[in-house]
């Protein structure tokens, strides 16, 4: 518990890192957007029987990721992805005197070392004395964070958040608050999740996985595609920002609100999403008309897109901003999605990018919302809103603003 004073001082995004199905780093992801190349495909690395389901895998096996991350061979894929993206973010920020600053790692994930645990379980389910323990002793979500914090030498505040698909958006805004309380100068914040049989089968039981490539906000949408990856931003205080050669943008608004409607389904009028977006605007002291682009949660399920679209219409109509779901490229990366999309949003503000919403043909009948379908550069974007909504009604919106 700090004795620091809380101030509403500005927080800046100084670095960004991503690994996901459309690229091993930020540059590769932007190239994929430019070329309109989505990351979904058949299953190559995930060892599930549900081969009929497209997934958005990171295009490397664990052996290759181990080399890229510089971690030990038995490390969970969740931690490998996390380490690669977080390290990119940190090196991108280029903070020279980081050892003399208070630096933290606030990371999110939803299933921890489940990729290893489910392997352990194949033997354990048959014989309680079987299964290699090293495959299960990093099952906890927190272990993933600790391993990466250790690698990156981030020590002053290290914690893990898990609120389903909004996890890493919550991690980013918690990190910003830690800086505002004077507990940190620099925070690497975001999240990670590897594809696992556990989540694939779980989402499959809910019957919300599309056998085709997902079509967010389209009238014919039939579910989501699962993806994997990690995305992190480096948040810094005003003082640290002043010492850096480049920053992306200001992180100006955030809110978490609960839909309090159903454990997995969103309310028809999108109460939680509406409250989250409204709360983030209020925090950033902005009006709806100030938002120039929305990076949608946009999973491609009937329920999410309807609720999110309804909430957007309620809040923004008649002047609805440009919008798109980058999940049409990356798939739904669950606990990583808020981090990955925060990076896309920060880049959008900096470079005026608006990302295409692939495979969109016709707006949802009940809502006349048409996402952007081509890649724009140099669009005049003052403020970008990023939505992340998860199970348990957990709705988070973040706002990134021109510095």
């Amino acid at each position: 518990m700090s004795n620091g004073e809380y101030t509403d001082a500005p927080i800046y995004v100084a670095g960004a890192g991503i690994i996901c199905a459309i690229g091993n780093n930020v540059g590769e992801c932007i190239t994929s957007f430019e070329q309109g190349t989505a990351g979904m495909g058949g299953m190559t690395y995930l060892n599930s029987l549900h081969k009929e389901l497209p997934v958005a895998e990171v295009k490397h096996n664990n052996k290759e990721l181990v080399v890229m991350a510089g971690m030990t061979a038995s490390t969970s894929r969740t931690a490998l992805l996390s380490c690669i993206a977080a390290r990119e973010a940190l090196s991108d920020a280029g903070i020279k005197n980081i050892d003399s600053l208070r630096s933290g790692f606030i990371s999110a994930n939803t299933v921890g070392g489940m990729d290893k645990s489910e392997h352990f379980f194949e033997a354990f389910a048959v014989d309680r004395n079987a299964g290699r323990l090293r495959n299960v002793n990093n099952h906890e979500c927190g272990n993933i964070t600790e391993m990466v914090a250790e690698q990156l030498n981030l020590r002053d505040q290290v914690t893990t958040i898990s609120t389903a698909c909004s996890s890493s958006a919550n991690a980013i805004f918690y990190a910003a608050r830690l800086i505002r309380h004077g507990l940190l100068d620099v925070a690497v914040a975001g999240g990670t999740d590897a594809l696992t049989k556990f989540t694939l089968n779980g989402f499959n039981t809910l019957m919300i996985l599309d056998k085709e490539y997902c079509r967010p906000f389209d009238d014919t949408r039939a579910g989501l595609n699962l993806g994997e990856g990690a995305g992190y931003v480096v948040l810094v205080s005003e003082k640290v920002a002043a010492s850096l050669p480049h920053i992306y943008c200001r992180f100006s608004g955030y809110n978490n609100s609960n839909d309090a409607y159903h454990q997995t389904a969103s309310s028809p009028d999108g109460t939680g999403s509406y409250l989250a977006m409204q709360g983030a605007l209020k925090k950033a002291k902005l009006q709806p008309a100030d938002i120039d682009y929305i990076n949608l949660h946009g999973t491609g399920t009937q329920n999410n897109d309807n609720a999110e679209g309804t909430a957007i219409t309620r809040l923004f109509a008649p002047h609805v901003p440009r919008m798109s779901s980058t999940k049409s490229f990356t798939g739904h990366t669950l606990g990583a999605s808020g981090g990955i999309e925060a990076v896309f949003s920060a880049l959008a503000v900096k470079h005026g990018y608006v990302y295409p919403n692939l495979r969109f043909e016709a707006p949802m009948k009940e809502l006349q919302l048409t996402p952007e379908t081509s890649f724009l550069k140099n669009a005049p974007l003052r403020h970008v809103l990023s939505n992340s909504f998860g199970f348990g009604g957990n709705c988070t919106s973040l706002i990134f603003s021109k510095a």
Partner: protein
Amino acid sequence: MKIYIHSATAISPQHTFDGALLEDLVTYNTNRLQVIEPPYQDLLDTKLIRRMSRIIRMGTAAAIKCLRDAEIDQPGAIVTGTAYGCLEDTGTFLTKMVEQCEDLLPPTPFIQSTHNTVSAQIALTLHCHAYNNTFVHNGFSFESAMQDAVLLLREQEADNVLVGSADELTDISYQILTRLGLYKKQAGSNLDLFNTNTKRTIGGEGTAFFLLSPTPSQDAVVLEGMNTFYLSEHAQLSPERIAAFLSVHNLSVEDVDVVIDGSNGDAIEDGLYKFLQQTIFSALPVIRYKHLCGDYPTVSSFALWLAYSIIKAGKVPFSLHVKQPSAKRILVCNTYLNKYCSLMLVTK
């Protein structure tokens, strides 16, 4: 800003939910202590009780009771810590996935396996749209949730915060943690935990919730301070660190009436506490508590509940074998796996 604890509830392997404070201790002759579930009918909808797994039931019920005790209808925020999340459902889904070869799996265990299920079910039960967060950081899951709660109050984002923890020990996790070497090889009475002179500890589980706010009230207990130390070769819990923690609050060890320490019956690990008792705590009565609830990653929430309850009751229960009849200021000093250490200071 002063932070007050207005109510505290715990469901644990002892009778902690209702009635007299630890008057009759429950004895276990196993290394696995399980919570005593109270009747939930007054707290939760009957249909919900049936559908919820144990951790969700106990967490949600403890939270609802905590709010009732504080006479609050809607909290300004809900923050939960859990190291392992909903293990029963996770284990069920994993087992079925293997046994049924990924075919015809039931959705409910997957839905309820999500780490934020307890926090979400509290919101759902209360129709509460406020901030809702879940920390899953091993032995600091509860402390992280507490820190978030305190920060929210300081930001004036919430008038009050419902904060707590929940962790369950299931058949599967008990078997795995036993194989990982966490628990004693031989079972004895939990009440003899500190006389075993053997390595390792006993497993436990539980939930505790607290209602925090910056507004004083008649029975409220002040949370004066909290700090965490990640123990490594660089950072050990030392008398100097404890003194430094107290001095931040302009206090010294003489101002503390009772210490609640995190001894867990491991002859080696408890050496830390023996050393502290010979040094900084030499003049202080020390309460040990892990024989009551077992050891688990969010166990410090039980210790905070105990500290709150002792101050509120105005007496230290006889069953804790401490000469001190009452306490106004208690220092809670916990360690988990000799790695996660937290200090919490509460006062009348």
